[in-house]
C-alpha cells in the first residue's frame, strides 16, 4: 500500500462521514483522537525545512511544536514530521484539508497521531535542543491566555496535550 493509497483511504473516511452526516460531531472518527494535538505529516519534499512546514500548516492554527525527522549524520530531512497544534481542533482541520494535497510537487499525507512519543534523548543534544524537544518551538502563551484557551476547550476532558503546553522559553 503506497502512501497515496493511504492518503486516499483517509479521504474516503471523510467522504463517508459527510454522507452519513456524522462529520463534526462526536460520532466523527476524529473524535478518537480528541486527546492528542499532534498530527503526522508524511511525503514532505526533502528540501522543506521546519520553518516552511510551520508556514504552511499554521493556517489551521497556532503550532506549538514540530519534529521534522532528520538523518542523524547528514541532517537531511527524512520527509516526515510531527506537528503539535495549540488547539486540538486544528488537527481536524489539517487532516481534513491537507491530506492528499500536493506540496512542492509531492502528495503529502496528513493524519492524526494518537500517542505521540517525543524523540529520545541523545547524548549530543545541547540544552537548546533538549528544551525544544521538551517544550516545543512556539513562543509561550501567557498564563492568562492559556487559561482562556483551556476554558475554550472545556469540553475536552483530561487532555493529555495540556502537559505539553509550552511555557515561555527564554534563552
Amino acid at each position, binding site marked *: 500500500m503506497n502512501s497515496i493509497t*493511504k492518503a486516499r483511504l483517509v479521504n474516503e*473516511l471523510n467522504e463517508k462521514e459527510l454522507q452519513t452526516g*456524522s462529520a463534526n460531531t462526536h460520532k466523527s*472518527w476524529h473524535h478518537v483522537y480528541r486527546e492528542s494535538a499532534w498530527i*503526522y505529516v508524511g511525503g514532505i519534499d*526533502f*528540501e522543506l525545512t521546519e520553518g516552511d512546514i510551520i508556514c504552511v500548516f499554521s493556517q489551521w492554527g497556532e503550532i506549538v511544536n514540530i519534529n521534522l525527522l532528520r538523518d542523524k549524520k547528514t541532517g537531511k530531512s527524512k520527509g516526515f514530521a510531527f506537528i503539535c497544534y495549540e488547539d486540538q481542533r486544528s488537527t481536524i482541520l489539517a487532516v481534513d484539508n491537507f491530506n492528499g494535497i500536493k506540496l512542492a510537487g509531492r502528495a503529502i499525507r496528513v493524519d492524526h497521531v494518537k*500517542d505521540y512519543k517525543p524523540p529520545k534523548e541523545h547524548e549530543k543534544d545541547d540544552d537548546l535542543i533538549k528544551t525544544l524537544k521538551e517544550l516545543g518551538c512556539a513562543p509561550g502563551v501567557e498564563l492568562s491566555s492559556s487559561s482562556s484557551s483551556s476554558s475554550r476547550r472545556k469540553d475536552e476532558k483530561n487532555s493529555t496535550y495540556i502537559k505539553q503546553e509550552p511555557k515561555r522559553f527564554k534563552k
Partner: protein
Amino acid sequence: MSSKHDAIEAQSKAMRDERRREDDEARGTRFGDQILDTDVYEENARTGYFNYVPGNNDDDDEDDDYASSLPNVKPKAYGPTADILQNIPNIDRNYDPLAEHRRPTIADRENEYQKKRRMIPGRISPERLDYFAEGGKTPDPQAKGRSYAEIMGEIAIRNAKTDTRNQLAERAKAAEGQSSTTANGGASASGEKRRRRWDQTAPADDNDPKAKKIAYDEAVTPAHRMWDATPAPGQSSFDETPVASRTPGAETPHHSATPSNKRNRWDETPRTERETTNSGWAETPKTDRGGMDDVDYIIRSTPTPSTDKRRSRWDETPANATTNGGSFTPVAKEIGVASTPRTSGSFTPGMTPIIATPVGTRAANMATPTPSQIPMTPEQMQAYRWEREIDERNRPLSDEELDAMFPPGYKILPPPASYIPIRTPARKLTATPTPQSTFSGFHIQESAHGQSAQSNQLQEYQPSGNLPLLKPDDLQYFDKLLQEVDEESLTPEEQKERKIMKLLLKIKNGTPPMRKAALRQITDKAREFGAGPLFNQILPLLMSPTLEDQERHLLVKVIDRILYKLDDLVRPYVHKICVVIEPLLIDEDYYARVEGREIISNLAKAAGLATMISTMRPDIDNLDEYVRNTTARAFAVVASALGIPALLPFLKAVCKSKKSWQARHTGIKIIQQIAILLGCAILPHLKSLVEIIEHGLIDEQQKVRTITALGIAALAEAAAPYGIESFDTVLKPLWNGIKQHRGKGLAAFLKAIGYLIPLMDAEYACYYTREVMIILIREFQSPDEEMKKIVLKVVKQCTATDGVEAKYIKEEVLPSFFKYFWNQRMALDRRNYRQLVDTTVEMANKVGSSEIINRIVDDLKDESEQYRKMVIETIEKIMTNLGSADIDSRLEEQLIDGILYAFQEQTTEDTVMLNGFGAVVNSLGKRCKAYLPQICGTILWRLNNKAAKVRQQAADLIQKIANVMKLCSEEKLMGQLGLVLYEYLGEEYPEVLGSILGALKGIVNVIGMTNMTPPIKDLLPRLTPILKNRHEKVQENCIDLVGRIAELGAEHVPAREWMRICFELLELLKAHKKSIRRAAINTFGYIAKAIGPHDVLATLLNNLKVQERQLRVCTTVAIAIVSETCSPFTVLPGLMNEYRVPELNVQNGVLKALAFMFEYIGEMSKDYIYAVTPLLEDAMMDRDLVHRQTAMTAIGHMSLGVFGFGCEDALCHLLNHVWPNIFETSPHVIQAFISAIEGLRVGLGPGRVLYYTLQGLFHPARRVRDVYWKVYNTLYIGAQDTLVTGYPRIVDDNIRPTIDENESLQKRIEKPRNDYARYELDYII
C-alpha cells in the same frame, strides 16, 4: 473559438452602427422614417433598432463571391452575440446540462496512478524485429523493426544519461550550496536528483532544462529520441511526439551563448520571442511546457498569450488578424482554439509549430498536417459538443425547411427596393470561410460544399456509405472517412487503411448487427490486412482519452479475435499491444482486468515464449515503477498461459540480477503475481518458485525484501494447506527479519509468517505463534494502515491455530486489541471493518462468546452508527457460531437492551441490524420470552412509522422472530401481530407490502392454519387482489403465502375463491423470476388437489390457446403437476381430448404436457402407455416439426418410466416412428431425437437400437454415416458392455468352407485375415 467569434460580432456591430449613420444620411434609404409617432414614442426611442432588413440577394456588384460564399458561414454567424452573453449573469460556458447522463469515460474514473500511461509519450513503441519470421535463418539486420540489442542499447543509453544528469545536477547543487543560493533553486535542483516518485510529473528527459543548460548547451542534436524512429503509417499523436525535439529554442543559436549557471537559455526564450511577434514562432514557448514541473520555469514562461488558458482580448480581435495581413499565425492560433489548449502536460507541445512549419518526420509522413490530429481533453470536447448543439438548434431556418413547414401558397417576398444590405468589412470577415466556424479549418471546405443545400450541420460527421455517425471525439481517428474520395484512385495501402477504418468505425459506433458483421469481416480478413495496418489503427483508439467502457470492450474484442487469425504475424507488434493492454490489468473494473488477461494470454500463445520474453525484458528494469508494475502482472499472465516451467529459467535469472535491484524487484513481483493468479496450480512448482526468490529476503534493498516477503505470503496462501516443506529454507530469514525490521518491511514479513503458520503442523505452529504474537501485540499500536490490516489478518491466523491458549489471549491480547482496534475509525473503512469483525469472531471461537460480547456490548449504544453496526455484526456472527449458552442473564439483558437501542436509533435501515437482531433473538430462543412484549412493542410502533423503510424492516423482523415467538408460546402476541399485519395489507409501497406478506407467511407457518388470526377465510380473499400486483417481491411473497394456505388449509376457503385465484395465477406464469413461476405452478397442484382437477384443468387447457410461448410452457408444466397430484387418469382424458382441437399451439401444448407428465409420474407411466400411444403415433406422423419434436421428448420420458414393465411392444412401435427423424437438421429436433433414442435404449435395450443403427453405419454417403455414428456413439457411451451381445456375427475367414487346405493357408499369408469372432462368448450369450 466562440469568444473570438463574439468579439468579431461585437466589432462588426460597432462598425455597423457607424456605417448606418453614414449611410442613412448619404442615401436616405431608411424606411419607416416618417411614421414615427412622437406622442407615443420618445424621440430617440428607435435608435437602438435596426432600420433595415439584412439580406443577401442584393444586386450590388461590389464583390460577387460574397453571396456565393455566404452559405459557408451559416452556423457560427448566428446565436447570441457577445454583448448579449455578457449581460446574462453567471453564464458558465462549460456547463454541460447533460453531464450527469453522460456515460463516463474510462479516463474520468482513473486515478492519478492509472493516468500515468497517458502521460508517457511515445509509449506505443514502434515495431520490433521478428526473429522467427524467416524460419531458422539469421534475421536480416536491415529488416524493418528494431532488434533486441538495439532496444537494450537504447535503454542503456537512456539510463546512463539519467545517471549523468543526476550527477551533474548534484554537482551543480553542491556548487550552488557553496555560493549560498536561494532555497528555492536548491530545492528544484535536488528534486531532480532524487529518483522520481510516481506522482510527480516526469520531466521529459530530453528537454530537461536543468540538464541541458550545462551539459548540452551546444547540442542541437536531440535526434536519437526513440520516438523519431518509426512513426507508423496510421498517424496518431501517440506514434510520435514530434515537437519536443524541434522546439525553436534548440535551433536559435543566438541564445546558446548565454551559459549562465542559474538561468538557462530555455528560460529566456519567451522574452526574446515576444519581440519577434510576427514570425512564425510567435507562439512557441508553449512547446516547452511538456513535463515542466518547475514553478520557476512556468512563471517565466507565462507572459506569452498562448500559454494562458483564458485567452485575453488580444488574440480575439479581428483587427489583429487584419493588421497581421497575410501572416499565418492568427489563423493557426484560431485552429488551435478549435482543439483548445490542452491540459495534459506531455501533449502541450502545441499545434502552432506544426501548422506553421511542418518539418521533420511529421512533415514527411503527413501530406496535410491536420490540426484535428491533436486530441482534445474530454471537457473541451464536451464544451465543444454542447456549443455545437446549441448553435445547431438556434440556426435560422433555411428556405427548404420553411418550404416544408408552410402549407403551399406562401411566397418569398423581395425586400423593399430601397433596402440596402450592409456591407462592412467586418461582415465580410465573418463571411469568408474562416476556420472558426468548424471543428478545424481543414474539414469545412469539403463538408460545406456538399451540404450547402442540406442545412443539417450534423451531417458533417456523417461519413458516406452506410457508416455510423462520427462523434467529435472520433474525428481525430476517422477524419479520413469524411473526405469523399474515389476508392479506385487510392493506392492499395490507402484502400486497406480506409477499409480498416470503416470497419473499426462500424464496430465502435455502429448498431449491433452492423458491429457484428464488421467484427466478422475484420476477423476474416485479418491476415489480408496485415498486423501492421490493423494495430496502427486500433491501438491509438484504445489510448484515446475519451474512450468509454463499452467501446474499450469492443476494441479489445477486436484485438482478441484478430490475434487468433494473425498468429505469428503479430510478433513485431507485441510490445505495442502490451503497452496498450497492460493498463487493463490494473483497472479497477474486474471485467476489464479479465479481458486484459485474456488478450495477453492469447498474445503469448500467438507470439510464443521467446518473443514475449525478448519484448518484455527491457521493461523489467525500467526506471518507472508504473511500467515495472504492469510488466510484472503481464508476465504472470504469460506464465499462466504458457506454463510456469517454461518461464522458470528466465525468472531465476531475473531474480538474481546483479545489475539493478529493479530487475530483482520485478522478478519477485512476477512470482507474487503468478501465485495470486494461478492459486493452487503453483503447487507442482512451489519448491522451485520459493528457491528462486528466497535470497530476496536478505537483499540489501528494502523494497526487494518487502516484495519477497509479500511474494512468499502469496505463495503460501496459494499453496495452503500444503507445501510447508518447500518453505523450510525461508523460515529462518523470515524469523530473523521480524526481529530486525520495522515499519513497512516488518509488515510484509509478518504477513509472510502469518500465511505460513496455517501450513505448519500443530507443534511448530504453536511455537511460532507464541513467538510472533509478542511482536503482533507490540504492533497493535502502529498507526500505519497497512500494518493494521496485516496485524489483524495475522492475529486471526494465529488464534486459529492450537498453539495459543485461551488464557493467553484473554490476558495478553484482548485488552490492547480492544484498545487499539475497536474504534470509530476502523468502522468507517469497509475493509478494516470486515477484517476486524472476522478477527474478533475468530478470537471469540477461542475464548468463548461471553468474554468478547462483554467487552463490546456497551458499544451497542455508541454514538457512531457505523460503529454500532460493526458491533452488531460481530455479535451476530459470534452468536450464530457459538450459541448463547455462554451468556449469563445480566449480559443477556444488556444485549437485548443494546440491540433494541441500536435498532431504534438506526438512520439507514439495512440488513446488518436486522440480521443481527434476528440472530440474537433466535440464538437466545426461549430466554427471550421476557423481552418479547417489549420487542413486539417496538415492532408495532415501527410498523406504524411514516418512513417506508422502517415499516419494511419491522415486518422483516417479524418474519425472522416468528419461530422464537412460537417457541416462547406467545401465540396471543402473534395473533395480535397477525391482525395488525392484516390491517396493513393496504400498504402502498410494494417493498413494504412484500415484507408484510412475508411476515404473515412467517406467522402462518408457525401458528398453523386453524389457529391463525385473522382466520384464513378472511385472509385469503384479501390476498387475491394482491396477486395482481406487478412487483416481484410482492408477487413472490404473496404466491408463497397463497400456496402455503392451499397446501395446508385449503378447506378453509370456498372453492370459488380458489378458482378465482387460479385465474390470477395464470398471469403469474408469465413472471420473469423463476421462483415466482415455480411457486405458481406448485400452487396449481395444491389447488387442484383441494378442489379437484376438473375446473383447474379447464382453466389451464384454455390457457394453451394463448400466444405467449412462456405462458404456454408454464401452463403445460402446471397441467403436468396437476395430473401428478391428482393422478393422471383424472387429467389424461381431458388432455387427450384437447388434442383434437385443430390448432398448432394447443396440440403442441398437449404433447408438451404429456412429456412433463411422464417425466413426473415415472413408473406410473406403464398404466398409460397404451392409452397415449395412438396419440403419439399421430403426432409422430405430423408434418409439423415441433409436433414430432415434442412427441419424441414425451416418448423419451415415457420409455424411461416403463423400463422393466414389459411394454416393449408399444415402445418398439414408437421407435419405428421415431427413427425416420434421424435425418432432421434442426438442432432442437436432433436433441429431442437423441433424447428419445436414449430413453428407448433404456426401455428397449441397446441391442434393438443397435440393429436400427447398423444399417447406416457404413452408408456410402458421409452425412448419413455421420449421424448414424453419432447415435452409435451415444449407445456405446451408455451401454458399452451390453452392446457386445448385439454385435452382428461376422464369420471368420478360415471357417469359410474351403476346398483346399493349402489355399487357405496361402490366403492366410497373403492378406490379413478376419478372425475376430470370440467363441467363448457363445457360452454366455
